[in-house]
């Protein structure tokens, strides 16, 4: 289980997260939706501590860390919590100087000190899972965006994280390429991978997410099961936002909700 309680994040004078409390059950997929600048990315990055929350508590499984304004958190604790997470970025961020399989092995070898042969075996199995085993020795620059993102998913999964954090995993991709990424994430979801994803992609959210958190201006406006939130939201703000998302999706000839 992942528990965020009372997370505040301040950039200078800008209070970006205003006391966010969210609980994410193991094996569930949660979509983080909301208008641009609402704090989705920041919240995700507070889970793996790429951003250190100004205050609040982050809990992943048995690991808990509390944050206080001005307090310092030991790098070792940050590392321990971070290793429970994997992250998929909008722009993939594969290492261009490593082949696909080396990208997946890197964390196992460098961080977890696995023997290279063992790491290669696991990396190959993961590439297989995301349908990229045939490109194991390819350089990232020679792969399509969708292929790069699938390798990036394998890389994030390599250290067996408790949760996969995805920050707009499809928004840098053309619709066809986005589809192959949606398919892979859907497969992972059906296998019980815990995921939290920030997304504007209704197709992605509605196909995979069971839970939805609507975040606006640093506050959780509404959260609940995807079916309810997408089709029958309570809050006025949520209704308006979902309506615009659906409009956009229709304009693009995109997915059904």
């Amino acid at each position, binding site marked *: 289980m992942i528990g965020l309680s009372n997370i505040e994040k301040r950039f200078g004078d800008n209070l970006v997260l205003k006391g966010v409390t969210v609980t994410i059950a193991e094996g569930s997929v949660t979509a983080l939706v909301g208008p641009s600048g609402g704090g989705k990315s920041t919240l995700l990055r507070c889970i*793996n501590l*790429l951003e250190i929350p100004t205050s609040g508590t982050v809990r992943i499984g048995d690991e808990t860390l509390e944050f206080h304004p001005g307090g310092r958190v030991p*790098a070792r604790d940050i*590392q321990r919590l*971070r*290793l429970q*997470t*994997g*992250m998929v*970025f909008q*722009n993939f*961020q*594969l*290492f*261009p*100087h*490593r*082949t696909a399989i080396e990208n997946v092995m*890197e*964390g196992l070898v*460098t*961080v*977890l000190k696995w023997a290279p042969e063992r790491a290669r075996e696991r990396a190959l199995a993961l590439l297989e899972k995301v349908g990229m085993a045939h490109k194991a020795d390819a*350089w990232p*620059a020679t792969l399509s965006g969708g292929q790069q993102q699938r390798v*990036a998913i394998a*890389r*994030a999964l*390599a*250290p067996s994280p408790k949760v996969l954090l995805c920050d707009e995993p499809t928004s840098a991709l053309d619709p066809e390429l986005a589809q192959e990424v949606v398919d892979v994430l859907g497969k992972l979801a059906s296998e019980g991978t815990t995921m939290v994803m920030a997304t504007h992609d209704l197709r992605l959210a509605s196909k995979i997410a069971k839970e939805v958190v609507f975040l606006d201006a640093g506050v959780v406006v509404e959260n609940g099961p995807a079916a309810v939130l997408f089709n029958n939201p309570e809050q006025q703000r949520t209704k308006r936002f979902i309506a615009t998302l659906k409009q956009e999706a229709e304009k693009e000839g995109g997915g059904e909700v």
Partner: protein
Amino acid sequence: MQGLAFTVVAPYWDLLLIGAWWTAVLTVSAGALSFVGGILFAVIVLYAPNIVAYPVRACMWVFMGTPLLLQLFLIYFGLVQIGIDIPALAAGIVGLGLHFAVYNADIIRAGIVAVDVGQTEGARSIGFGKWQTLRHVVIPQAIRNTAPPIGGNLIALLKESSIVSVIGIAELVHSAQLAISETFRPFEFYITAAALYYILNLVLEAALRLFERHVEASR
């Protein structure tokens, strides 16, 4: 006017080849030092606490702002005076190496800064520490992206290495001068030395191209 006769070179051919050999040794060793030193300086300037970074920056400024000839004299003749007696070859390697390390440092620093911060985040997200990120992700990419200008510096180093003849290292120009002092045929020997430099340059350029081709594949 004296006629040109390259046959005078023949008896000194071995001497010149040995000179070329030492030029190659100097270039490779000083080149390696300038490369490693360049990375080290760049990392210190960017990341070390001020108490380390400021003195290093001051040293770099001195190396950049004064003539290489003066630096060599200082290392070879000056340091003896305070009890540091360095053999000529070592002094030549250190002088050339540090001088070019400073130029490389500038290039590599810019290269490091230019690596997308997303790369750092990607590395941090899979658990890399600061140092691991630098070593495995940022520096390798910075080096790849700056390979052409660093290679250019290496070629400049090969040519500039002739300056260490002034502290008595028997490199190519030094050998040529020795031969000239016995034969009084500067033209033939300087032309031959120039041809040998040209060949060394071709070899170095071929090696650099090989490296760049290897790097291109991964971009």
